């Protein structure tokens, strides 16, 4: 909203501070002046670009801002001059309100023999300074009053009105061409200002085309009314019209303003030519008057106000005189009810004031927020972390130390991605008004976002990428949406560990992360396995040949591995990508593992290596199980030290692999004897041979 300082000053005859000072003081009191510019001659002074919060419709005009200035500086606000020439005899135009819930007051005034033409004088000058387009004097007069004192009015070509003015609900299917030239079909939720035959305008939103003022107009009917905020808002939204009038009505206009606005508009039009016929017709719905304008007075306690606001660091503080002075200057009437207590009658233009707390805010605002002391409340109590915070920290630290950067991606994904990556079919939830087609669904998985980020990097020639994201996934239905905290991690490219040393990231890099992660939690069993495609268990976005799930105490906590080459191709990724998802909600059911130690043996460990050839069908899992099944207490460790396949099938037959199994024996309380080592070696060999292994000759 643009405000001219010269126009403000016309309402504040005693005001003598500079425009700059005024702009600062208004800003600190909530009328945010965001720009101060020189106003065009001959108006002079400044143009203030202001931003006024939605609750302060009373200040969206010059008189309202002048009232604020009067309160700030303790000045007298000049009253509006509403004197009119005497009316020629006449009955006035008949008005019927048939929709009293929507229209609380309607005034109509007839002006005859007017001269319609361009505006001149102060209207033209102030409009020029505001950058406002001039139309015709009668229309400009209505806008001028709107900018001046804030109440919307409308001028009709009286000769096009047939019979009485009726404010009523629109008939379903009724048509109205509005001033913007659009033909609109109305329904029963719309309220129209009509005559006996037709709708003339959308009440409080926009006038109609057929009765608009034209250069040929001779006689005018001026409407100044009060419409219900919710009704106007519904209409304005449904028809997509955001007019100056609807903006003000839907925020709550001043019930007492219509006669004033009507008089001011009439004055301006009559400046050119014409006369008033009859007295103002003013139809008031008493129930609305009681609800809106004759509101109950509210109790105000100076002590309560001072107590809630706290100490001041500047000025007299929140005294009786200060607080009542502020409220008075804003238009409140105060009647003392007890020591430091008042019964406050609220101004009709401040529908935002309803309760004592609203008055306390006014006192704080006008006194100046920055004149209150900065204090800190005392506190005794405990500070609680979120229950999962230490687990989240453990997971985050592990991934960071493994070289994965933390990322945040979109909360939404496409319908295609939702179908591909949802943990079960049909659980993804769509958005009613998505940001874009690609963001049509709430993400049921973090993997699509991860793949988008990997692609983003690859498309920018960043080839070595490791990322993770901890975030919310959504499943359910429009009835109920469930949220869970999951983690996605993705890796592609090479791992560099020196100047001349790098290797491609592979499945086992991801598996190592999952192993280390699950090791941070207390669990009885952790295992990894692959699934045949037919089982349907492995998410089909993974390549079943190089993917696994991780199961902790019987519950699947992660799927990870190589992205399926089909998915890779459809996303046009130019190199293989590894990706996985960890169900943190499931993992976090376990507590963090408390480290516990065993005594270190003082006796020498003994290493024995076994080189065997196995068919590919025998997995390491089987070898390990067989070794632990031997229940040799002294067998401290066994691991695959080297695995070898011969593509030519010479040293190792095709369909087989050789493995060097490295074992370590140690006793906590004695030196191991050769005989027992020999016996253990023999049983290891025979057990592994029974699995299908063949001992290689060295």
């Amino acid at each position: 909203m643009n405000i001219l300082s010269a126009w403000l000053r016309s309402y504040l005859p005693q005001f003598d501070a500079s425009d700059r000072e005024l702009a600062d003081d208004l800003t600190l009191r909530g009328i945010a002046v965001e720009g101060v510019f020189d106003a065009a001659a001959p108006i002079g002074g400044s143009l203030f670009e202001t931003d006024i919060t939605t609750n302060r419709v009373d200040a969206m005009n010059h008189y309202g801002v002048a009232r604020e200035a009067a309160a700030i500086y303790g000045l007298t606000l000049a009253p509006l001059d509403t004197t009119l020439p005497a009316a020629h005899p006449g009955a006035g135009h008949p008005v019927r309100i048939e929709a009293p819930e929507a229209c609380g007051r309607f005034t109509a005034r007839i002006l005859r023999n007017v001269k319609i033409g361009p505006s001149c004088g102060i209207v033209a000058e102030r409009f020029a300074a505001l950058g406002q387009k001039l139309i015709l004097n009668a229309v400009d007069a209505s806008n001028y009053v709107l900018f001046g004192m804030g109440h919307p009015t409308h001028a009709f070509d009286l000769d096009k009105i047939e019979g009485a003015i009726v404010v009523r609900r629109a008939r379903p299917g009724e048509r109205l061409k509005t001033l913007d030239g659009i033909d609109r079909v109305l329904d029963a939720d719309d309220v129209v200002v009509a005559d006996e035959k037709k709708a003339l305008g959308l009440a409080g939103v926009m006038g109609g085309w057929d009765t608009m003022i034209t250069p040929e107009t001779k006689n005018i009917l001026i409407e100044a009314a009060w419409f219900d905020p919710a009704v106007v808002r519904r209409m304005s939204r449904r028809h997509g019209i955001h007019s100056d009038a609807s903006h003000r009505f839907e925020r709550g206009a001043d019930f007492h303003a219509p006669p004033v606005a009507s008089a001011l508009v009439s004055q301006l039009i009559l400046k050119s030519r014409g006369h008033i016929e009859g007295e103002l017709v003013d139809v008031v719905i008493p129930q609305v008057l009681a609800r809106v304008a004759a509101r109950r007075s509210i109790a105000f306690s100076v002590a309560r106000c001072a107590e809630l606001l706290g100490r001041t660091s500047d000025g007299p503080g929140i005294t009786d005189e200060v607080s009542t002075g502020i409220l008075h200057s804003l238009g409140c009437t105060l009647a003392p009810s007890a020591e430091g207590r008042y019964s406050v009658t609220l101004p009709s233009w401040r529908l935002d004031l309803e309760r004592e707390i609203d008055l306390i805010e006014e006192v704080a605002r006008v006194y100046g927020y920055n004149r209150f002391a900065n204090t800190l409340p005392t506190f005794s109590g405990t500070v609680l972390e979120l229950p999962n915070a230490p687990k989240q920290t453990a997971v985050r630290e592990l991934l960071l130390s493994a070289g994965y950067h933390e990322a945040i991606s979109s909360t939404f994904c496409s319908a295609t991605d939702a179908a591909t990556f949802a943990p079960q079919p049909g659980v993804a939830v769509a958005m009613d008004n998505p940001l874009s087609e690609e963001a049509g669904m709430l993400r049921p998985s973090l993997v699509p976002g991860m793949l988008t980020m990997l692609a983003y990097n690859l498309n920018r020639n960043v080839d070595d990428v490791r990322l993770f994201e901890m975030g919310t996934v959504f499943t359910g239905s429009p009835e109920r949406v469930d949220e869970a905290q999951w983690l996605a991690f993705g890796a592609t490219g090479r791992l560099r560990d020196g100047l001349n040393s790098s290797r491609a990231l592979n499945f086992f890099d991801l598996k190592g992360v999952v192993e280390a992660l699950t090791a941070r939690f207390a669990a009885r069993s952790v295992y990894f396995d692959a699934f045949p495609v037919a089982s349907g268990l492995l998410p089909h976005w993974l390549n079943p040949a190089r993917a696994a799930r991780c199961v902790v105490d019987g519950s699947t906590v992660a799927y990870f591995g190589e992205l399926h080459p089909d998915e890779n191709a459809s996303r046009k990724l130019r190199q293989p990508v590894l990706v996985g998802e960890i169900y943190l909600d499931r993992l976090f059911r376990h507590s963090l593992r408390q480290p516990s130690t065993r005594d270190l043996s003082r006796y020498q460990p003994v290493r024995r290596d076994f080189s065997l050839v196995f068919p590919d069908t025998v997995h390491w899992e089987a070898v390990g199980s067989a070794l632990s099944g031997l229940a040799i207490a002294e067998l401290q460790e066994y691991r695959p030290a080297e695995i070898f396949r011969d593509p030519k099938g010479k040293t190792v037959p095709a369909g087989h692999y050789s493995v060097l199994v490295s074992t370590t024996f140690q006793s906590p309380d004695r030196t191991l004897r050769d005989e027992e080592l020999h016996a253990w070696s023999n049983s290891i060999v025979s057990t592994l041979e029974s699995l299908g292994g063949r001992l290689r000759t060295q």
Partner: protein
Amino acid sequence: MSDDSIPQLRGYDDASLDRAFASLTADLERGAGSLNGADAVEQFRLEWLGRKHGRLKTVSEAWLKTAPPEARRPLGQRFNGLKERIEALLTDAAAGKHRAATGAAIDVTLPGTRPQLGAEHPIVRTWHEAVRIFAAMGYSVGTGPEVETDYYNFESLNFPPNHPARDTQDTLVVVGQERKPLRDRLLMRTHTSPVQIRTMEQQPPPIRLVIPGKVHRNDAADATHSPIFHQVEGLCVDEGITFGDLKGTLDHAMKAFFGSSVKTRFFPSFFPFTEPSADVQISCIFCGGKGCRKCKHSGWIELLGCGMVDPAIFGFVRQKQPAYDPEKISGFAFGMGLDRIAMMKYGISDIGLLFSGDVRFLEQFA
């Protein structure tokens, strides 16, 4: 027992000990004069400190072990003095230019093999910082769902149905809500404020809570706006909480975030759930308040919204927690954009980078 590598010890009296140790010291200093090269130093070390045949070992075997109890102390002191001197000579030799370089020289100016560490996301980093700052002032952490009901996101925060205040927060709505009562309709929360209500419904006052979280609005994206962003919300409710307490708390927090020279100023504003409401500006952290491009030459940067909890909010909460009686308690709430703070602190010019996963951007936070 005798050994010709050490002098004769004629007795355990001070004079005899002095004479014997003086002789050893003379030998020592003579040997130290020719410590040239690694081999010579090693030879010297073996001669004096060798485990089996070193002179010190011999002294220990020949003199210490046979010494009468009353002589142990004076002998031990002299022995230790000699040992320290030998070690000092060896240290000097090692530090000096005596040792020749072995092996091919490396170019120590080549880059080291850095551990490849991941970087915490700047928003998460800011999030943790906010939690830490408010934890030091007694604030616990709270969370709530990202998909909210109309009741918690709007109605209970005093945004009545069809109220213009709702226009300021364009909302992303879940599909298929039309048939439900307005209060039950599901939407993406537009702010973290619903968690205020949820927490107060769960627990009676006093409350000090800081609520970080992801929020969404149906806004167009540009360099400084994203439809997906993060907020941290604060709530303090107790007996006798004042507007001055709100000001002091945020002034303190901003100094903790941006440095103790930062100043705050408060402007009237409007939020349906606070009254009085305020916008808070901090003195520009880039120019110190003199005025620059970043602060549009005003010297101030607008950073957060806040206010005293509107009694109407306690009215909604009291349906479940009667202890929130606005006659007895008061409180304040505040909210700020984590993304915006991160962008300011780290000089990020495009908010889109925060949600891109761009490694070149993220690795700067490692």
